[in-house]
């Protein structure tokens, strides 16, 4: 175990931080799972944070002038470069601390929030660069599996079979024809100290992982699965239930990669069938049995692979 994490006891339902670094009055959709993930992540991090947002839903809903939901210092520059902006923030802090222009012992966590498009597609190069250079920062991908901000277009994190406005089903298509890009594995391949997956349905797990990500020296990546009622065609009240179901069907397994070692943080021994998850969402409504079977097989195989990775300790 990393020495930076040795002292961290973890949050519990009884000792949650009182602070809400993310204020109400934001413009997220009813039942937005993404803004909940953002709120919980910031709650775990506290007020000594500099936050960088990529363009996307969370940026738009949190900052329409003259209102901001950010109670911590926050900057948004563009879509694809949040990791690079954070590199600059972190480097500046380092230089200013060394030169005595910022309190040396004051801990400031630099955190990036970006969506799946801003992470897996357009921002992947900047992310890879920042991870490789070893900046001490936390990158949080809020993955709602498509470009929701622009009207639900497919991204490389859109799951197989899902309907989006640019992966519509038709005579020759059943929606998204490719498998979801495994960004946590890409992040882990950089050899960074900490990678994790999380979802707001397991809020303590999410908050603990985000906090650990901040505690480690060097880059950390947390991939958070965040239901989007608008983009998925689901009921707002079911966001948490769906996120839970994604874990229980093994569609979105929860794990950590600490210094390259995989740890499954919630083992699913009796998985529910994926169909149970798929059928509750309009984006999968068109799927035939054949595709559902393919998804089930893929999920099983991926989980097996993950188990093997975790066994190789």
């Amino acid at each position, binding site marked *: 175990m990393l020495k930076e994490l040795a002292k961290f006891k973890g949050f519990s*339902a009884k000792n*949650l931080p009182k602070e*809400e670094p*993310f*204020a*109400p*009055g*934001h*413009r*997220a959709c*009813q*039942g*937005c*799972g993404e*803004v*909940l993930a953002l*709120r*919980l992540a910031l709650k775990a991090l506290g007020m000594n944070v500099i936050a960088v947002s990529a363009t996307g839903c969370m940026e738009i809903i*949190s*900052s329409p*002038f*003259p*209102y*901001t*939901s*950010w*109670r*911590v210092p926050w900057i948004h520059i563009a879509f694809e470069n949040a990791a690079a902006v954070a590199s600059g923030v972190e480097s500046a802090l380092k230089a200013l601390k060394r030169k005595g222009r910022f309190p040396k012992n004051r801990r400031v966590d630099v955190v990036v929030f970006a969506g799946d498009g801003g992470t897996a597609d357009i921002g992947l190069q900047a992310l890879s660069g920042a991870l490789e250079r070893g900046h001490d920062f936390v990158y949080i991908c809020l993955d709602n599996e498509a470009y929701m901000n622009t009207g639900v277009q497919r991204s490389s994190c859109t799951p197989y079979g899902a309907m989006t406005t640019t992966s519509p089903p038709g005579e020759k298509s059943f929606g998204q024809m490719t498998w979801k890009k495994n960004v946590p594995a890409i992040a882990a391949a950089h050899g960074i100290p900490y990678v994790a997956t999380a979802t*707001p349905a397991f*809020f303590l797990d999410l908050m603990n992982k985000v906090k650990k990500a901040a505690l480690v020296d060097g880059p950390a990546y947390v991939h958070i699965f965040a239901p989007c009622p608008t983009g998925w065609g689901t*009921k*707002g*009240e*079911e*966001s*948490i*239930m769906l996120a839970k179901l994604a874990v229980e069907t093994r569609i979105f397994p929860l794990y950590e990669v600490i210094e390259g070692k995989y740890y499954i943080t919630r083992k699913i021994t009796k998985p529910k069938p994926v169909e149970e998850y798929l059928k509750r969402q309009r984006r999968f409504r068109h799927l035939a049995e054949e595709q559902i079977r393919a998804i089930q097989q893929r999920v099983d195989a991926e989980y097996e692979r993950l188990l093997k990775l975790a066994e190789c300790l």
Partner: protein
Amino acid sequence: MPKGKDTALMSWKEVPFGCYILEPGNSVKFKTGDWRSFRPVLDKEKCIKCGQCYIMCPEPAYEADEEGYYIVDLTYCKGCGICANICPKGAITMVVEEV
């Protein structure tokens, strides 16, 4: 722009430096409660004060009162129903918002 129908928020001379927002978290001034068509109603009899509604609220709109019950702030509650959906005791019901 028709005369007198000016929609500008302020004069250009009043735009803050860099168009920054200098007051942290001032979105609390923006009341999202009027987005709501359903309202959560808590049955204190059933409530066990577990705080799931508070922690899972995306706004966040829930706060604990002196007795430890989590009470929704209707200024911000958009009526999504997550709280009612996840409440382990079924203590929250969504009712149609009266106009």
